[in-house]
């Protein structure tokens, strides 16, 4: 299986907004990015400056790449699915078509694609489903079976475009309020699907708590798990050390690793999931006493 690796092709450029459409609780946004699109793999993200020239916001915002197209009417494009959440994302989603933003990307690791066909289960929470559709296409094209489970708190927060649904072998939806699909959480469905389709690998993207719960299930069922995580990032390019998570590396050493460089896609079994907000015991250089 190809290992995920850091994208070394990052560039910084102005990206023109080609389209900005509200879809449920999100905005589907398309940016003209030239050859930035050529080097983008499913799981990579971009980082965008927010607030315009007089902005009081000094940090970029990271967004997982939903789709990237090499060439089209506008040259290369990158598509994002953005939730208008706080100051920065509200500013971004409010921009009219033809505005330009300052974009850095593609950044981070991407999902590893097996060299042989496998049975893959893709699990997305909220806008976390976005990067999974491009991944599904890739997996299908090399002959894998792809089942998908998408969950959110409520119907408007399920991002599942029609063409995406068509590609996959099966698509299940859960909402916590039952407003669409099954009432409950994505993890409620996983054991059954894993068994039924002899799943080899889970690919996931969504809130940390969801990813942690998926890892438990992956462990129980002895399946691989590649998770795309989301920690607060100040720089997105590996220079600030704010975005760390406890990761056990190949030599078995536990380190606080940068999720923007060693992630966002990581091997789920290497993460110490329970220890957000603390330095796990045994971490290299942990505080004494």
């Amino acid at each position, binding site marked *: 299986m190809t290992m995920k690796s850091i994208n070394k092709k*990052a560039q*910084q450029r102005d990206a023109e907004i080609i389209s900005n459409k509200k879809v449920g609780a999100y905005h589907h946004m398309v940016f003209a990015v030239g050859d930035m699109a050529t080097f983008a793999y499913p799981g990579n993200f971009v980082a965008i400056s927010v607030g315009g020239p007089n902005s009081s916001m000094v940090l970029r915002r990271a967004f997982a790449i939903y789709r990237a197209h090499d060439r089209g009417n506008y040259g290369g494009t990158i598509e994002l699915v953005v939730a208008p959440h706080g100051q920065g994302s509200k500013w971004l989603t409010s921009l009219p078509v033809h505005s330009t933003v300052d974009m850095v990307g593609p950044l981070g690791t991407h999902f590893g694609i097996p060299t042989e066909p496998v049975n893959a289960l893709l699990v997305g929470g909220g806008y976390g489903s976005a990067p999974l559709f491009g991944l599904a296409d890739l997996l299908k094209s090399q002959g894998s079976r792809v089942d998908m489970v998408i969950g959110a708190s409520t119907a408007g927060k399920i991002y599942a475009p029609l063409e995406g649904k068509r590609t996959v072998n099966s698509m299940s939806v859960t909402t916590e309020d039952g407003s669409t699909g099954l009432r409950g959480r994505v993890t409620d469905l996983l054991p059954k699907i894993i068994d039924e389709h002899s799943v080899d690998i889970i690919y996931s993207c969504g809130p940390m708590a969801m990813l942690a719960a998926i890892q438990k299930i992956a462990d129980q069922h002895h399946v691989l798990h590649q998770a795309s995580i989301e*920690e607060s990032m100040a720089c997105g*390019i590996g220079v*600030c*050390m704010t975005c760390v998570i406890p990761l056990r590396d190949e030599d078995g050493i536990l380190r606080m690793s940068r999720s923007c*460089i060693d992630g966002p896609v990581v091997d789920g079994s290497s993460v110490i999931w329970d220890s957000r*907000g603390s330095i796990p015991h045994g971490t290299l250089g942990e505080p004494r006493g």
Partner: protein
Amino acid sequence: MVDFDFTASLGTARFPNPVFTASGCASSGKELSQFFNLTEIGAIVTKSIMVKPRSGRPTPRMAETPSGMLNSIGLQGPGIDDFLSNDIPWLVERGSRVVVSIAGESVEEYGVLARRLRSVSGLSAVEVNISCPNVENRGAVFACDPSAARAVVEQVRRSLGGELPIIVKLSPDVTDITEVAGEVINAGADGLALINTLLGMVIDIDSMRPKLGGKTGGLSGPAIRPVAVRAIYQVRAKFPSIPILGMGGVANGRDALELIFAGASAIAIGTATFGNPTALIKVRDEMAQLLTDRGFTRFSDAIGYAHRV
């Protein structure tokens, strides 16, 4: 701009231009090299390194604030051995100017670090980050205690020998920064780095608790620039001949000029790099242009220009 002499110096160290990375804001340099050639800037100031590996503080480690940010990294790093075998050679081979920043938890530790650097070739200077808790004195930060600050610098001076310039980085969180400056200058500092972050806190109004894992954090970015300019101006007024590496909220050439006119001999860029990976190049080019526009032909003539009578 062809005729503009941009060379800069700090003590005996010479640099092709006065724009440096700020410690902790460029890791050990490698990560920025995909955005520009590291030889394009004055120097890489590496993230403060300690004797042993260090995990740093728990997450969340950052909070955005108006025109600034808080960080509580807690000096995460691989320790001096790993650093000297991996990070330094990479930079030196590529021809970067390197300023190594060191941090300790005791006077003794600073000595150990300085001794290790003594034999390392290719370094331009050592930056001594004294904004660290002194475990031997109830965690009182060295930079906030003039006599502890002095002891650190004396120790580094002794352990390092006489070659490399020592730049001592001061904290603005003191009643009188010129007092601390005076102590460390007397103790043998060849230059000062002004300013480190201000102690701050953000409370998450949803969890209704401090937002950072480490509760307090260091405030940086444009928000603190007026404090940096004031600190540099005050120190320059009192000690006109000590070189100052100025930093605090510089994001463009105009910002850099404020610090230069206040008295900085070189400028370090921290937080701005997070918002713009090529901020250093932007600052460098805008600065050269603005100084040329104002009739300067040599960068060095602009240093401390706001003090003229």
